[in-house]
């Protein structure tokens, strides 16, 4: 019965696909294999999510070694949701990738691109599904190493320095994480999250454990671009190939956010982290700083992809803000924003990639008059931008609603004010695009009106449609997020 093995297959199938693609040495075959794998992982994640919704947590023992001795893959409503987000984004990106990659990456290197994308997918899914702290580190490095190369494949030479910078900071982050895990391992003698949680019960505030938690927070904070540890992100997203920007923006930081939630709420427990330690206020202050500083920085960028990257740092602030509340409602809001912002940013980066293909770049001087040259893409981008602002009827509104309601429930009025006021900054940076696209004349030498190829436009529009659909009917996501929060808070306790 293969369905039993879905938890491990999700990570293994793309992992095996990568060397297959390298052996095939063909851009087209690589793409076809990657497409098939992405579809398979999406289907498996969907089936897993459906299963855990009905049956509850699924524990999978690799090689039948029972936990906590063997490595356990533990699927619950939280990581099944994250896995679905990751694999669905990979699936949407695949039809888009063919044309976009052909335009941006040399023919002889395309198969390597797809192999790396599979490694990255495998790593991200592995991080999401594993219940073992060290296994998580390994997958973190698999996905990171693949990511560094994917970023370096960008056309601009600054992609290389961006990849190098990310390599240094990403490795530092992963090392800090593994130091923290080492502390926990020394104190508890286990690497299994669920087992660790049981052993930490009641003693989580002893010093080695607190230090371990601090190391993990700093390490994962680097990977998820928690302000002010976000320095790697803007360049990486700006100069990476379009598909990579879209895929990473929608998934990479989100998976790291999930890890932070897992460690805080499942391993240590909300009480230990937020009642006994001052992590809540610290995280809240950093998040609010992200909302304002990164969003303000987004307003003055000269390049659309860079604007989106800074906006991501700000939007991650909403998610960490939800975590910082330390409550089930706050966590649910954070989880909802993981999904909603992932979809929104994925759509926006796909659209930016379509613009880059037609216009040769995404600098604002090239985008002038876009409302006339690429009306469909420009309009879809505005819709996605509205979701960043949190206008009702878009996905961003639903999670913002949940976040504000959670902050009100906790009596944190300053957080309510910060969330709402920072939305105005989002209005400013989204309207920067609107005014550029609709109020300026196309530059001399602009291509004649027309959209990007349909293989690229269609996935981008499908994502945009999802943004609107999940805004008008947000219940599925919010319910799933609530279940995820319950799973995170209940697991192992």
């Amino acid at each position, binding site marked *: 019965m293969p369905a039993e093995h879905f938890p491990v297959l999700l990570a293994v199938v793309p992992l095996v696909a990568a060397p297959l693609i390298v052996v095939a040495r063909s851009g087209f075959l690589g793409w076809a294999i990657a497409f098939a794998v992405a579809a398979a992982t999406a289907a498996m994640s969907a089936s897993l999510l459906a299963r855990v919704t009905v049956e509850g947590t699924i524990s999978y023992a690799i090689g039948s070694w029972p936990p906590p001795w063997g490595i356990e893959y533990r699927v619950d409503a939280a990581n099944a949701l994250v896995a679905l987000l990751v694999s669905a984004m990979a699936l949407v990106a695949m039809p888009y990738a063919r044309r976009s990659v052909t335009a941006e990456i040399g023919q002889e290197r395309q198969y390597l691109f797809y192999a790396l994308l599979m490694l990255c997918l495998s790593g991200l899914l592995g991080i999401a599904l594993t219940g073992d702290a060290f296994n998580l580190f390994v997958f973190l490095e698999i996905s990171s190493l693949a990511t560094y190369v994917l970023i370096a494949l960008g056309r601009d030479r600054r992609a290389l320095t961006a990849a190098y910078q990310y390599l240094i900071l990403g490795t530092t982050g992963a090392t800090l994480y593994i130091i923290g895990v080492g502390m926990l391992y020394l104190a508890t003698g286990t690497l299994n999250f669920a087992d660790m949680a049981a052993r930490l019960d009641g003693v989580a505030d002893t010093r080695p454990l607190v230090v371990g938690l601090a190391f993990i927070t700093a390490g994962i904070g680097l990977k998820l671009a928690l302000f002010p540890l976000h320095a790697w992100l803007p360049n990486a997203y700006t100069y990476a190939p379009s598909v990579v920007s879209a895929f990473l923006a929608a998934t990479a930081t989100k998976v790291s956010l999930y890890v932070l939630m897992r460690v805080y709420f499942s391993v240590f427990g909300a009480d230990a982290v937020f009642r006994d330690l001052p992590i809540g206020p610290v995280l809240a202050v950093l998040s609010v700083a992200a909302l304002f500083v990164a969003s303000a920085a987004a307003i003055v960028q000269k390049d659309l992809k860079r604007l989106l990257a800074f906006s991501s740092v700000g939007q991650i602030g909403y998610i960490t803000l939800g975590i910082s509340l330390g409550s089930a409602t706050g966590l649910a809001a954070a989880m909802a924003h993981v999904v909603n912002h992932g979809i929104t940013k994925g759509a926006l980066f796909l659209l930016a990639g379509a613009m880059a293909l037609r216009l040769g770049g995404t600098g604002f001087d090239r985008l002038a008059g876009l409302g006339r040259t690429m009306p469909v893409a420009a309009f879809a981008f505005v819709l996605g931008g*509205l979701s960043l*602002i*949190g*206008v*009702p*009827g878009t996905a961003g509104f*639903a999670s913002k*609603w*949940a976040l*504000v*309601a959670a902050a*009100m*429930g906790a009596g944190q009025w300053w957080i*309510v004010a910060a969330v*709402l*006021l920072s*939305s*105005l900054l989002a*209005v400013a940076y989204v*309207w920067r695009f609107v*005014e550029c696209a*609709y*109020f300026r004349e196309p530059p001399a030498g602009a291509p004649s009106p027309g959209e990007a190829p349909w293989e690229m436009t269609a996935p981008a529009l499908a994502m945009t449609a999802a943004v609107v659909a999940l*805004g*008008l*009917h*947000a*219940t599925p996501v*919010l*319910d799933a997020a*609530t279940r995820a929060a319950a799973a995170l808070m209940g697991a192992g306790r």
Partner: protein
Amino acid sequence: MTNGGLALAALCIPFAGIALVLLARRKPDLREAATFATAAMLFFVVVSLAPAVLAGERPSATLFEMLPGLQVALVVEPLGWLFAAVASTLWVVSTAYSIGYLRGNGEENQTRFFVCFAGAIGAAIGIAFAGNLLTLFLFYELLTLVTYPLVTHHGTDEARRAGRVYLGVLLGTSVVFLLPAIIATWVLAGTLDFRTGGILGGRVDATAAAILLALFMFGIGKAALMPFHRWLPAAMVAPTPVSALLHAVAVVKAGVFCVVKVIVYVFGTDALAALGGAGWLTAVAAFTLVAASAVALRADNLKRRLAYSTVSQLAYVTMAASLLTPAAIMGAALHLVAHAFGKITLFFAAGSIYTAAHKTEVSQLDGIGRAMPWTMGAFAIGALSMIGLPPLAGFVSKWFILTGAMATRDWLAVGALAASTLLNAAYFLPIVWRAFFLPAPERDGHGHEAPAPMVIAQALTAAACVALFLFPGLAIAFARALIGG
């Protein structure tokens, strides 16, 4: 079709109209015919709902669950019907006017204009028939966004700047004040449905109620309560039909409609009175009313004068609602209707003058009444209705508001009403006087009357101002149904 289905149809018709207009975008005549057909259909659907609503039925339809426990739902109640009726009636009239205006002035992007126009009406219907605060908020924001391209229609730097003010104030107030007010209501009351008698009664203390009321009132930026009124004059860069239908009717009326709706159905007039009332709101509205009139007095640009007159007239509605007495609430509802017909007549006239004679300033209008008798006649009727003289619609609504103010012995409100009536007269009558009794300048005459569709449109709305005075029964019946009488 059930009445709930009709309400849903009313919401869908304008959006279907968008599709038709887009399909016919290459053939202007067909496109305008599509707009007309949609407008006419909407009008009939809204009218067909009237008997049921008057009979006490509340046709409702639920679309889908937007947030857990919160549906996008439509409920047609008397005030909403009145607003929808005003918007749909005037859409028909102003479509005729728009065609004359856009073609007369050779405007560009006419398809976008009609698309956004239909979208704005759709959003207005959504606001009118919203069954809960969330639905209201959804369409409220939609209305802001869909009117933005209309405000910035000309695409000039001036339009872009005005667009920033427009969007900044409307989105800003709604996100920073209105949204937290709605979420807080949800947290406190556990429901966002509009219910007779309110949903907050007994769930909040006086302080919380006052804070919530302030968040709601300033959050509804479309009601243009000072100091959040700047978007309204800024929006005057739009083509005149936009100013006429949207910034005299749909958008601003959506604002005061929300104000009345929140006071009546969220707080509940009695509950709010028990919680200490809304005295400060009366004061702010009274100040807005007089201050805006004073600014209008000094404005030379005709549209700017009309814009500030609108700010002041909107404050009438807010002030009336804040008095919390049945007569005043009825007055608020009636003023919503009366002002709509009066102000659209005035804007139509301003647009006609611009189209036919290319005049925008009040000081240029000497003697224009002889060249454009129909236009200036309509203008005079609209102006007199604004002042509140019989036999015109403005008299009816002001009568009710004044009755309400007298009933509570609220001398501040009575004084503000009196002062603003004088100011209204002071800034409108000189225009009429100049147009008809001053000699036209020697060298450039004023040419001729505006194109026929425009003249017909303004004649119709002017006639409606008179009709509303002579036959106010229907409107009063709906206003009475609103207060449950």
